[in-house]
């Protein structure tokens, strides 16, 4: 009987008799090919209703690893701080982790075909993007398909670098594919990667962070527009939102297009702030004084976005903001898959674990868990950036924890 010593999804160590992963909640028995005959795998260990029937587990069993450059996969176990390693500044792409048995996670009977479907019951097998975790020292991100969508159209990147001054900086980019557009998953992945590359290049060459953020969003928008295979008026061109944050020793900088958000959560939890202003119908109604926030967000049009990255965007209008926090804390950047369950800064602050600054990965997982426990109606992606950035002070290197 195969035994797992660590979760194949999130690398959390586990004991032989653990039924569910303590980190991401996946049913370990199913992954080990040891599922009870009538057991339905639960996505998360959690309250009733939080799980669902036939579900995913480790996508890496069925899907080849993406090209390394893309790096949207889950972090490899014990991903080390890459700073100082020549040429590497982002968390490395995972090595494909094969699994001895390739049996369907849904019916536990069929083998898996080359397209990732069960040869018996036809159920799609978990994909790499269903659940992604990445961590560098001092910055972490987690993304999950959620419980009601068939694929994860969110994407993110976390990165760390050294500024020309010698100071450390960490960055996170989070993107949410527009579901009604074609290939939203490709849009979000392209935007996250292009924005990260542009941002790091600019920061490393000494650019003003706000300027760097603005330009990175424009670069990301171009990358998404380039995915459109029709003329630019193609109504369904691939599209996504983008929110990005940089934490440097002297300032936090955020930039965004769309309705993905960034929040400032101080260590003392006094006066947390939402840093972004949605490009959305609801936000427009509120800012124009036409509706109360409660009424606007209750409207079914609330989430219609008024700004996005894509070939059919009316205009690309990046918003940026820089500020110097008075004390330590974390920046939380996320898609609406999270903030639908913790909308205000106060609600979110209450949900962020006290040790967020020293253990950003656990916080990101915890916040994703809140969205899943709340029903997981959308894909959910969360990145947590400590301020001031770690710079090797007091933060443990990312490693599996009990």
């Amino acid at each position, binding site marked *: 009987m195969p035994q797992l010593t660590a979760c194949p999804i999130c690398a959390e160590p586990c004991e032989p008799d653990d039924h569910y992963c303590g980190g991401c909640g996946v049913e370990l028995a199913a992954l080990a090919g040891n599922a009870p005959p009538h057991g339905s795998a639960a996505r998360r260990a959690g309250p009733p209703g939080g799980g*669902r*029937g*036939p579900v995913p587990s480790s996508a890496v069993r069925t899907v080849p690893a993406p090209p390394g450059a893309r790096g949207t996969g889950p972090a490899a176990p014990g991903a080390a701080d890459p700073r100082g390693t020549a040429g590497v500044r982002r968390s490395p792409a995972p090595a494909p982790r094969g699994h001895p048995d390739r049996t369907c996670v849904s*019916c536990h009977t*069929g083998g898996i*075909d080359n*397209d990732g*479907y*069960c040869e*018996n*019951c*036809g*159920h*799609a097998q978990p994909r790499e993007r269903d659940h992604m975790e990445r961590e560098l020292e001092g910055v972490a991100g987690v993304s999950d*398909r*959620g*419980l*009601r*969508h*068939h*694929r994860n159209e969110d994407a993110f990147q976390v990165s760390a670098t050294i500024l020309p001054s010698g100071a450390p900086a960490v960055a996170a980019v989070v993107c949410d594919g527009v*579901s009604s557009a074609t290939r939203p998953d490709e849009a979000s992945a392209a935007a996250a990667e292009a924005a990260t590359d542009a941002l790091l290049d600019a920061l490393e060459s000494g650019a003003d962070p706000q300027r760097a953020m603005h330009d990175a969003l424009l670069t990301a928008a171009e990358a998404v527009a380039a995915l459109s295979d029709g003329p630019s008026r193609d109504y369904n061109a691939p599209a996504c939102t983008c929110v990005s944050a940089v934490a440097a020793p002297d300032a936090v900088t955020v930039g965004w297009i769309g309705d993905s958000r960034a929040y400032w959560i101080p260590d003392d939890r006094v006066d947390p702030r939402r840093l972004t202003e949605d490009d959305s119908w609801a936000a427009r109604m509120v800012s124009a004084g036409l509706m109360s926030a409660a009424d606007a967000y209750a409207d079914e049009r609330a989430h219609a976005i008024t700004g996005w990255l894509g070939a059919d965007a009316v205009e690309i209008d990046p918003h940026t903001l820089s500020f110097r926090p008075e004390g330590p804390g974390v920046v939380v950047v996320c898609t609406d898959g999270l903030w639908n369950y913790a909308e205000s800064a106060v609600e979110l602050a209450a949900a962020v674990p006290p040790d967020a600054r020293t253990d950003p990965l656990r916080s990101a997982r915890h916040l994703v868990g809140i969205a899943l426990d709340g029903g997981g*109606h959308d894909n959910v992606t969360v990145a947590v950036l400590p301020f001031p950035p770690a710079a090797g002070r007091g933060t443990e290197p990312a490693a599996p924890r009990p």
Partner: protein
Amino acid sequence: MARLAKSHLPEFSVEVYQNEFLPEGGREVNAVVTVTATGGGTTGGMPLTAVGTADGGRPDAAVVLMVDCSGSMDYPSEKMRAARQATAAAIDTVRDGVSFAVVAGTHVAREIYPGNGGLAVADQFTRRDAKESLRRLTAGGGTAISSWLRLTDQLLHSQDVAIRHGILLTDGRNEHEKPATLLDTLGDLSGRFTCDCRGVGTDWEVEELTRISSAFLGSVDIVADPSGLEADFRSMMETAMGKEVADVGLRLWTPQNAEVVFLKQVAPTVEDLTARRTEAAPRTGDYPTGSWGDESRDYHLCVRVPSASVGDEMLAARVSLVLGQPDGGVSVLAQGLVRAVWTDDTAASTRINPQVAHYTGQAELAQMIKQGLEDRKAGNLDSATAKLGRAVQLANASGNENTAKLLAKVVDVVDAARGTVRIRPGVTEADEMTLETRSTKTVRVKK
């Protein structure tokens, strides 16, 4: 077993059009599957020397022409004359190297050419001899189509070729054998060759001839005026000469506990293949598609799958085009995936794919014409008016102009958009039979 014309096999591609989103509890998945074969020889009227050739460079095909010589072919006598001319024109179209024969059909089948129990290989001399032998096509006797088909089968299988095709011309009903005999013959022979059928005049039965052409995956049409036969035969033979590969199967995988509600070819004509499944493997069945040249066909697939949770994705069907190999296995020429995704987004799950909607309408159009004409014959004029009216509406809305024109010869159209029609008195039998025969012809989606 059929052999491949290896170096000239067309390339197949499969495209799937569907709305994969189902509401919670939804089970029925519809998709239109477009299969296109390219790289064959029927392009631009260029010489077809490269097509369907065996290793020696010789075309790897055989064709048998079956000509009705029953007594009725002499009334009027120009019918027999036109049949001879048409057969001669078809013989002229047989490419060098193709094996061929001519069979005269009455209550028995008679070899006219070459007459030695086998096939002749086309060249200038055999074509001339064959045309001369057509003088022996004389009318007299009855009609027993099974005997024609069985002789044709024998002749076509007297040589080892890749493409086997028959062309059948008749002017009357299959009167001199029991209907069950014909059905048995079709059961025995279907899949052994393809066959196009033509009815000349108006004394034949549309349903009977359609059953034959369907069994042999060929076309069927009416040639009401014998003078039109020659051009029709020539074009039928040209199409036959353009075929590159025979016995292509459409292989369908569906998940455990799924049910294939139907699989229909919907373009260029409606042809229900549902009942023609043969099991190939667990959860896998093969449906015959016959032979292919450079062409494109559409299929409408409807599968009922077990329901799954919102957020789940399932492969509802895998559609492959397969070709049998000498070792008993198959090679997969192309494949497409039909998916099911359960969502609580009602805007997504209620959307109807335009291709699926279009062909649902085209299938209904064919059915309304068939039922409307039956009702009309039976004297149920109210029902006939309603059904033919609906047909006019569907033909009009989908841009099926040819069918709309044929309908307008059978009913007076008051309002095409609303489907208001009046049954027209004094409709000619030819017009009615033309509508009936061509009712299954569809048009593709307006882009």
